[in-house]
């Protein structure tokens, strides 16, 4: 693969893309197909899921039975993320703590991080967060693009659902998403033939559905970027590239190498058979096959360079392997480094002409930082005890979920919070891992010996967890800015985070807890712990759900937005941001699918403008 050393880069490219995840991968895919010569810069190392994924490895084969540590956070040892997490060595960020005044360097969630006002997950690897993400792929609905028009809060997007719908179609066809069309309110259907069939529900999912029906809560197939069957490589590439036989052929040949899910091993490890979507297995291979994409890894971008006419000319980056500062030139710059990292690059690109950072005449770079509202509750379901043994690994993530069901009640003013959430849930006879049966003494009165073994058999598979994912409304108190003092190892000024949930989110989190308790009780189960009635205790810290978006918001007015509707800077015509930064709201629909659809739309526009000579 043409991973080039920085000494071998071409004198100039058409486009430089900063970042290689969902946004960078999607942007490169579209621009290369349009004939552009593209240089991609990735701050982490090269990474190949085909050869590096520990498929089928068991917890016993891992240190500490795979438990999470500060070195391998979140899912633990087998998490696909390498060199990353809530903290990245040599690349600090600053947060506030509940227990102390002032600014502090952020810590891992396991060793003090949950006391922070914000947590920032960063991978440092090719493909970014697409390597370990949950792959839940929900379309934002018509209400979600015009929330202010609907209930007076937050801001409207400069685009509507209809503007993005064709790109949702394309992205779903390209990456492969299983799911079904249910015709539910503000939960868009896909056109026929786009979604792959959803896997059959697991036993615990069917049981939950049965009791949720009595509570009026819909339980339907989730939409997940996993191939439940191989994609149609005869039809899809032609459909996506009807006027571009080369791009079509490259996609077809890449698509053929992706196998259907074999219903085992956790997607968070990555996937060596390419059954799930990762930028590294879906976006980058066909783009690289064109010969028009060069990628430099271990390239930490510091700032965007400018000429005297106010046009971007390229970027300065640190080659992490040598520590040297390098430069790269291009006609157009696309930042796709993740919401906050792209904002950091802009804010660090200061000059006499742009004293507050680049593309920041509105003062909105870094502003309106949003995460997703998260709250959860678990229960023990006696009906699931001693269930006959069967394999319910499935797609590793959920097959069913609960989309938001109270849109009408909310708009009628009958609820005490304005925006919705969906429920992610699961349980059952999953792979036993470190921590299994912790807390079992609360059910067994502290059994040990042969009785403990009998209890373990009885209770295994009888626990269910429910987790809400809700909309956060942007506010003036949540933003990132450059810390005046702190720099990372490369001498690049770091971000510090202000973050505050409003009553809208806190009340929503309480409602989640109440609902989960109702579901658990309806199933005849026992709630573990107490549902939190205090929103501040019910809600996860900012950044914990790893859906941080906003910070370079798009809009229709240059005075109060950073980008236009095509993710193009109002101030610098040849500068685009295609990651989560342009988001104007953060609906309960997990953001990655929308990031990809929006990036595709932006890059179609970019390619068109480039052809017209406007950039």
């Amino acid at each position, binding site marked *: 693969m043409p991973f080039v050393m920085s000494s071998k880069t071409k004198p100039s490219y058409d486009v430089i893309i900063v970042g290689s995840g969902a946004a960078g991968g999607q942007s490169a895919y579209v621009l290369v197909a349009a004939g552009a010569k593209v240089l991609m810069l990735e701050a982490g190392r090269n990474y190949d899921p085909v050869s590096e994924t520990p498929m089928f490895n068991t917890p016993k084969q891992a240190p500490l039975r795979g438990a999470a540590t500060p070195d391998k956070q979140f899912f633990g040892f087998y998490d696909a993320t390498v060199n990353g997490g809530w903290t990245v060595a040599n690349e600090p960020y600053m947060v506030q703590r509940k227990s102390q005044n002032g600014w502090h360097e952020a810590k891992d969630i396991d060793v003090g991080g949950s006391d922070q006002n914000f947590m920032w997950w960063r991978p440092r690897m090719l493909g970014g967060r697409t390597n370990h993400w949950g792959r839940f792929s929900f379309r934002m609905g018509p209400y979600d693009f015009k929330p202010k028009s609907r209930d007076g809060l937050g801001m409207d997007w400069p685009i509507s659902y209809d503007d993005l719908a064709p790109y949702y179609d394309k992205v779903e066809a390209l990456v492969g998403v299983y799911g079904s069309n249910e015709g539910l309110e503000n939960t868009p259907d896909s056109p026929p033939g786009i979604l792959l069939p959803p896997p059959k529900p697991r036993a615990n999912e069917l049981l939950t559905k049965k009791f949720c029906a009595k509570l009026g809560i819909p339980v339907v197939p989730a939409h997940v970027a996993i191939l439940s069957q191989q994609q149609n490589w005869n039809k899809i590439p032609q459909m996506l590239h009807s006027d571009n036989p080369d791009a079509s052929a490259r996609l077809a040949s890449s698509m053929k190498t992706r196998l259907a899910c074999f*219903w085992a091993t956790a997607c968070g490890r990555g996937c060596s058979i390419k059954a799930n979507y990762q930028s590294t297995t879906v976006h980058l291979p066909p783009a690289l096959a064109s010969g028009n994409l060069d990628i430099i890894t271990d390239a930490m971008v510091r700032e965007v360079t400018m000429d005297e006419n106010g046009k971007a000319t390229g970027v300065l980056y640190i080659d992490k392997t040598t520590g040297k500062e390098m430069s790269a030139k291009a006609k157009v710059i696309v930042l796709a480094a993740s919401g906050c990292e792209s904002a950091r690059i802009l804010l660090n690109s200061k000059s006499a002409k742009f004293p507050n950072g680049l593309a920041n005449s509105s003062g909105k770079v870094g502003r309106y930082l949003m995460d997703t509202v998260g709250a959860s509750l678990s229960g023990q379901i006696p009906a699931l005890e001693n269930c006959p043994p069967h394999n319910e690994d499935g797609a590793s993530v959920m097959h069913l979920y609960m989309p938001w069901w109270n849109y009408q009640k909310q708009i009628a003013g009958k609820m005490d919070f304005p925006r919705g959430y969906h429920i992610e849930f699961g349980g059952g006879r999953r792979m036993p891992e470190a921590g*299994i049966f912790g807390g079992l003494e609360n059910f067994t009165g502290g059994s040990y010996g042969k009785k403990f*073994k009998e209890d373990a058999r009885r209770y295994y598979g009888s626990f269910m967890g429910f987790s809400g994912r809700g909309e956060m409304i942007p506010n003036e108190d949540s933003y990132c800015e450059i810390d005046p003092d702190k720099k990372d190892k490369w001498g690049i000024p770091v971000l510090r985070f202000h973050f505050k949930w409003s009553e809208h989110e806190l009340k929503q989190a309480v409602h989640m807890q109440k609902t989960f308790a109702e579901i658990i009780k309806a199933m005849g189960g026992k709630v573990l712990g107490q549902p939190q009635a205090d929103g501040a205790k019910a809600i*996860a810290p900012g950044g914990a759900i790893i859906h941080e978006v906003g910070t370079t918001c798009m809009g229709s007015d240059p005075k109060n937005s950073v980008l236009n509707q095509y993710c193009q800077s109002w101030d610098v015509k040849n500068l685009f941001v295609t990651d989560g930064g342009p988001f104007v709201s953060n609906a309960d629909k997990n953001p990655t699918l929308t990031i990809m659809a929006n990036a595709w739309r932006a890059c179609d526009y970019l390619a068109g403008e480039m052809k017209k000579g406007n950039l």
Partner: protein
Amino acid sequence: MSERMDRREALKWMLAASATVSLLNFKSFGAGGMAATGYGTDPDLLKDYKPGDVWPLTFTDEQRKTVAALCDIIIPADEKSPAASSVGVPDFIDEWVSAPYPNQQSDRKEILTGLKWLDEESQKRFQKKFADLAESQQREICDDICYLPNAKSEFKTAAKFFVKFRNLTASGFYTTPQGWKDLQYIGNVALAKFDGPPPEVLKYLNLD
């Protein structure tokens, strides 16, 4: 569990839900301390690791004897599966308390203190170390510390240790092939298609 622990456990679950991994991660292992060097942020994920491969094990022979005895009181052999000590659980617990990470370092103090208490209590009651006691004598001590809410005030600290030790023993045992077999976990194998629950399961759950 303390308020703080509850919140941390809740977070663990919340984070796990959005992606993959097991459902109920009550990872009720402690917190605090400073990190030294472990396996690093980019370890070889494909390798088959054994306790002691990445950092040295540290139990003394005496500690190891006590650990093996307590493991087997918690998970003894029965008709379905072997005892914890026969499938490497003491090695795993040694790996755990020897690890250079903050949570494990904090657990180390509690585990080593608990083991010492156990031998002292055995001496006091029966004039022998825990490992040398008859099973009935071992159980007599364990009965006093196996359930924190019922433990007398003088046994509260030991009962907290027991919670942690039982969790570690279960973590070590139920992640082995023998432990999986005991629970009849039959996943982690490639399937041509996913059929959903078989009829007997639907019947069992009254979903047919």
